[in-house]
């Protein structure tokens, strides 16, 4: 479990720091790199990256909204004609999660490809 939690939090902290200055798609790269380095199992890589990135985006959106006179989720809800704030907050969660998850999955895939190559070359 600890093996899973470490990359989960590492990814969240890295994303939190990097996204202050870098573009959103950095999440794909960070998940890719973290999972390439430390998550051998592909399903784990996807799940860790998905939830780490998705939850970060969800929590950030929710916390940022708390400081506003009118929550952005409410305004966005009006634009997409949704009365449910849950659905609105699910949007960054799913999108962030998906793109992070794909990055993580790719990182893990590359890891096993590289490992396989080095094993077979021995």
């Amino acid at each position, binding site marked *: 479990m600890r093996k899973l939690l470490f990359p989960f939090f590492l990814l969240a902290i890295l994303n939190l720091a990097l996204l202050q200055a870098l573009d959103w798609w950095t999440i794909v790269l960070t998940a890719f790199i973290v999972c390439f380095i430390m998550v051998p199992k592909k399903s784990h890589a996807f799940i860790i990256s998905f939830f780490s990135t998705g939850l970060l985006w969800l929590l950030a959106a929710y916390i940022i909204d708390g400081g506003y*006179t009118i929550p952005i989720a409410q305004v966005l809800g009006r634009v997409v004609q949704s009365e449910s704030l849950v659905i609105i907050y699910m949007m960054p969660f799913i999108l962030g999660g998906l*793109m992070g998850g794909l990055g993580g999955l790719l990182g893990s*895939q590359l890891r096993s490809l590289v490992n396989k190559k080095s094993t077979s070359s021995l």
Partner: protein
Amino acid sequence: MLQKISFLLLSLITVVLTLFLNGNISFFQQNLPPAGKLLNPFGGLWQCGELKNTAQEEVLTNKAVTAPIKIHYDDRGVPHIYAQSMEDAIFAQGYVEARDRAFQMDFTMRASSGRLSEILGEVTLGMDRRTLQRGMVSAAEKAEEMLKDLEGFHYAELFAAGANAYLNERPENTQPFEAKFLDYTIEDWSAFKTILIRMYMSEYLNGYSDDIENSNLLAILGRETFDDLFPLENPSTVPIVRNQGIDSDSILKADNVKNDIVIDTFLDQIYQDPLDGIGSNNWAINAKKTKNKRPIYSSDPHLTLNLPSIWYEMQIHTPKTSVHGVKIVGVPGLMMGFNEHVAWGETNLGHDQTDYFTIEWIDRNKGLYRLDGEAVAVEKRIETIKVKGQEDVVDTIYYTHWGPITHWSNDGKHDLAMKWIIQDGTPKPELLTFIEMMEAKHFEDYKEATGKFIGPPQNFGFASSTDTVAIRVNGDLPLRSEEDGRFVEKGDKRANAWSEIIPRDQNPFIINPDDGFVTSSNQRSADEHYPYFYFGRFSDYRNRSLDTFLRAKSDYTLEDVAKLQYNSFSFLAYDLCPSLLDFMVEVELNEEEKPFLDVIVSWDYYYTEESKAASFFERWLRNIRNNTWDEISQYRNRMDIRYPDTWRLVDLIKNRPDHPFFDHLSSEEKEDAGMIVRKSFKDAVKYFKQNGDLQEWAESKPMNIYHLMRIPGLSEMNISTPGCKNCINATTSTFGPSWRMIVELGEKPIAKGIFPGGQSGNPASKWYKTGIEKWSRGEYFDLNLYKDSKNIPVITKSVEIKPVGQ
């Protein structure tokens, strides 16, 4: 191997998805918002909110500022600017406006210059092409050339410097909500963009003309019938100016050729669909007609209601003035407002200032046209329209002696060039008008300031604390021979167009009349004695209501004036209904129909929210129109036409019920007005029976205030408010009083004002639509001049702008 393929495939999917969510690629030519960018809480939409606890005091420096400026926002988000000079105040205007309305400024500038497609894609391409075809950009360039050598241009530059002081210094991730959605960055402001906005207002308020419709109708109906249905003057109108004494020796004679018109139909061409509903009221009451013996001024411009609102409100203090008012974004100064001495506001002028001329081509390639017997080459200007997600579109605009060719015909024989007064305005330091009005103290100041105004021509209402009330038409008016500009004219002679402008001191003008009040509501500005040919599109009923109500009382209070601005009485219904009911005496109604007639019989002619009579009357009148003008509407799908004014229909119903146009084309029997009225009544009943029962007025015609991009979620829909197009509270489903201001002048002005929107253009701001609810109920905010900022009751935010080095 399989693992490698799977890796490569997944990589490809991830890259494509990333590019798609970043807005770099699109599918099926759909410009979808870049969801990745938008939903990133660290840089996307979640950075657009308004913090609950903003820093109370911000300080910045700028080299364009000469002395420290203080800006305090009150509890409605209205900035109060304290500056040591008008120059610094205008800098601050630009700053606060960019801070609150950056997207609106940019969007309006784009609409003015054919650049909407750059951010919205193909959907606005037609609009952009039309804007460019009407020569808006070249007219702005010409105006800039003229204005930059005149006094006052530096205000446009200072305004731009102020706007850019905000736009350049904020972090990239604080782009406006809409700009993020559309995935673009707001551009810097410039003095040229201010001029573009001025062009846009001219286009919006005066860019229409009935020349093509009139020519078509003249050809179809013949002169006699045309004159009968479309008389130049409505005898019932109360003109703004009556008995204006103009020295007969000073009257200029128009030297353009009379009646060189094209009597021809412009068949198979649907050229234009002009806006309907624009209009405004203003009035000023002398002290003798008010309870407190202090003059009262009132202004309510009726324009398309949008979010963000067309108006931006502010208060400015300099050593020379303390002034409060509203302005259109992007233009320095205040357009309507009051200071300690005067109050002012405008209503639009219906007088025609746009003429069309046919072009007689000499060569097949349309490079040469005939003018005074010579072959003249058109000037071609290439305009490139950037279209989001697509290749650029290149358009060639053809310029003639008259102006740009705006209408291309299928047969090549009816190509029309447009001469528009805004394209050849006389050199005047126009940018000073709304700056000097802020500092005006007396009537002479008002005359001086408004004398510089070129256009779009307006009825400038005025009242001073010294009890002067006045209205003067300000703006360049073409000097026309009789009928000139009413129809499409032949473009082969220079002498066919106006060449001179009416001297400003001979524009319609009224001051302190015996009646004790002046008023304008888009009716004719001049009466039949005015020495110059004066015609156009005028409003016919609000002026009669206003004239009646203003005469009826001699002890007006500010509260009375507020009620009058919100008044929903229809003079049209009052004028017409008794005649309609006379026609109904002869008819036997069934049990289903009787209640509908009862509703009208007991009606007080007020368009209140609950009125069912108003809903029925509108439908009834619409049916009468359709059943009467069938001879004209049969051409509707083939060419541009217009219908006779409502006042003319009412006049015919009342005085000439046997007019041949009441005879319905499709029936064998010969109808008269009575038969049309009765048939229309029964049709209206049938309509309501088939479409649910008779609804209350507010329910049957709710008002919508759309966001500039017509996004329903950012708009305010289904607003319930009284009024109608012909009421003093002139409302339609998308138009209405865009600003209501009432001012009692005296030692200290007492003023109230409101607009249906809010100060902030940010949909996530609590000030996005602050005023709508109160506005819909006819309520106001108090407008107090706070010469000392310590007296502002609530300060929500302060900004200090210092000169460099202080």
